[in-house]
């Protein structure tokens, strides 16, 4: 099935829809963009949708009685509808933020800063992105709560036995990444959510690296909070999403205060708007929601299952290609059923920065660094890795270019 679903996605043809991939590089040849885990490229239709918004319908949303404002509001809210539909979540509980990081901070501050107290525990894993670590540390510091880190197995997966043992009566929140941006690991979030709920803890799933790449069903996962970001899923910068349970959102105090999120403001105090607007203070990312909505329609047309099948195929090719380069060590799961197409690796004798720099001279873009997962880096015993990550527009050519550039890289740095 993998293959037939895979062959149905014609990545080479899709590249034509992405101006940056369709254009020839300054030096000739094409761009081998293997850094989609950092941010995705954007199809023309997403840029067009935002442009059309500004050219035809730009106005501030929600409060205007004139038609232009109504049109702006409609296009803005349609973005929310689209993204809610994509993850099978009620629209009124789909909060638009500036990025995934704000979405997680919203929970940490609006819920955590008020509800956590001395000795309470927030359980994260050793493979979390800093955006799902630091907000909890900041809130813990203010409340006396403790942030605990569930270890990762040598295969690069969450140690589920340890997780089970670490969830206890003091655990108030279990916050885990769905797909690791560094290791590629797909974590068993349904199981973790169930375990946490059984212990009476809340759950947050960082779906930043899953929503762009595979079908994600918020209802099936069942977490209290699910966060992701627009710019990694063919959408623009400046927008993220927090999908939470409606009851939880209604019960929570607001986070940012300001216009739009209020019902009434008096000198004595204020009352709040209905959800989701209660959590959207100030002028929202209007054009960005329009762009994200168009990105969602693009992903829906391609089919998240077909995108996943394509990437599983690419992940296999990537692992095979890297295995053929002497001195390469790959981090994270070997079985493509258990991983996405972000692959971290090291190359003996060449620092990741130098790999990244050399590859760039061959038109191959990979990321080098700690990938905002410093606790994981320490756990792996490295300071940084190189990471190649694929997306729906990635082709076998890109992977072959990576492979041959790596071989040349070894020569250049004298380790061949």
């Amino acid at each position, binding site marked *: 099935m993998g293959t037939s679903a895979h062959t149905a996605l014609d990545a080479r043809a899709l590249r034509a829809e992405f101006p940056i991939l369709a254009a020839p590089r300054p030096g000739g040849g094409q761009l081998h963009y293997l850094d989609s885990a950092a941010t995705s490229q954007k199809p023309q239709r997403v840029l067009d949708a935002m442009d059309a918004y500004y050219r035809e319908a730009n106005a501030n949303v*929600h*409060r*205007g*009685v004139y038609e232009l404002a*109504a049109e702006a*509001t409609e296009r803005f809210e349609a973005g929310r509808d689209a993204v809610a539909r994509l993850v099978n979540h009620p629209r009124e509980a789909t909060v638009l933020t500036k990025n995934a990081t704000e979405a997680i901070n919203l929970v940490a501050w609006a819920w955590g800063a008020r509800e956590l107290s001395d000795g309470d525990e927030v359980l994260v894993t050793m493979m979390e992105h800093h955006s799902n670590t630091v907000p909890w540390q900041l809130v813990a510091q203010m409340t006396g709560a403790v942030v605990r880190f569930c270890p990762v197995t040598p295969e690069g997966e969450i140690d589920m036995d340890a997780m089970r043992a670490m969830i206890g009566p003091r655990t108030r929140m279990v916050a885990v990444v769905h797909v690791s941006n560094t290791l590629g690991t797909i974590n068993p979030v349904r199981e973790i959510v169930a375990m946490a709920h059984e212990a009476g803890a809340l759950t947050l799933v960082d779906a930043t690296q899953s929503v762009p790449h595979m079908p994600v069903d918020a209802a099936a996962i069942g977490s209290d909070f699910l966060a992701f970001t627009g710019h990694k899923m063919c959408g623009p910068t400046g927008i993220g999403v927090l999908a939470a349970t409606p009851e939880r959102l209604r019960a929570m105090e607001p986070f940012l205060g300001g216009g739009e999120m*209020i*019902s*009434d403001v008096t000198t004595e105090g204020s009352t709040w*708007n209905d959800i989701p607007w209660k959590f959207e203070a100030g002028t929202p990312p209007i054009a960005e929601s329009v762009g994200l909505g168009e990105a969602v329609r693009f992903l829906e047309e391609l089919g998240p299952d077909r995108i996943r099948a394509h990437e599983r195929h690419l992940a296999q090719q990537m692992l095979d290609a890297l295995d053929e380069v002497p001195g390469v060590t790959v981090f994270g799961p070997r079985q493509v059923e258990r991983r996405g197409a972000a692959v971290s690796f090291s190359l003996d004798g060449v620092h990741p920065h130098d790999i990244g720099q050399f590859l760039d001279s061959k038109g191959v873009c990979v990321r080098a660094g700690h990938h905002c997962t410093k606790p994981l880096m320490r756990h792996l015993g490295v300071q940084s890795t190189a990471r190649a990550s694929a997306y729906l527009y990635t082709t076998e050519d890109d992977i072959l270019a990576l492979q041959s550039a790596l071989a040349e890289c070894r020569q250049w740095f004298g380790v061949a």
Partner: protein
Amino acid sequence: MGGLDDLYQQLILDHYRSRRGRGRIEGASASVHENNPVCGDECFLDILVEDGRIADIRADGDGCSISQAAASMLTEVARGKDLDEALDLVEHFRLMMHGDAEPDEDLLGDAVALEGVARYPVRVKCALLSWLALRDCIAEYRETTAMGGR
């Protein structure tokens, strides 16, 4: 001027200029106060319930022509209804405002004239303000009587 005529039907302007059922009820069975966060408009709604029917209903507060006309029409059509009928009425009106129901003139009376408002999302809130206040008012009435209140 098309759209505008459609929105501001003569009946609406009439109700706006001479409002029915305006004011408060001394010794009301239930009262609520709602406000429209978009524009700050307020609505005070009082009902007097006798034998399970709305014996009197009055709406007060300032607002735009749509919200005032809607309140005026509401008091006319809700007066005399039993509480469940009144809730059905509100629900039918709500559906019409969201474009999810064909208006039933027998049920709605003059309020059918508000059908055109459905095409103006921001104004829908104006039209609904007093009607949803009635829903809340009935809920409050039932709660207080269930608790052995007045």
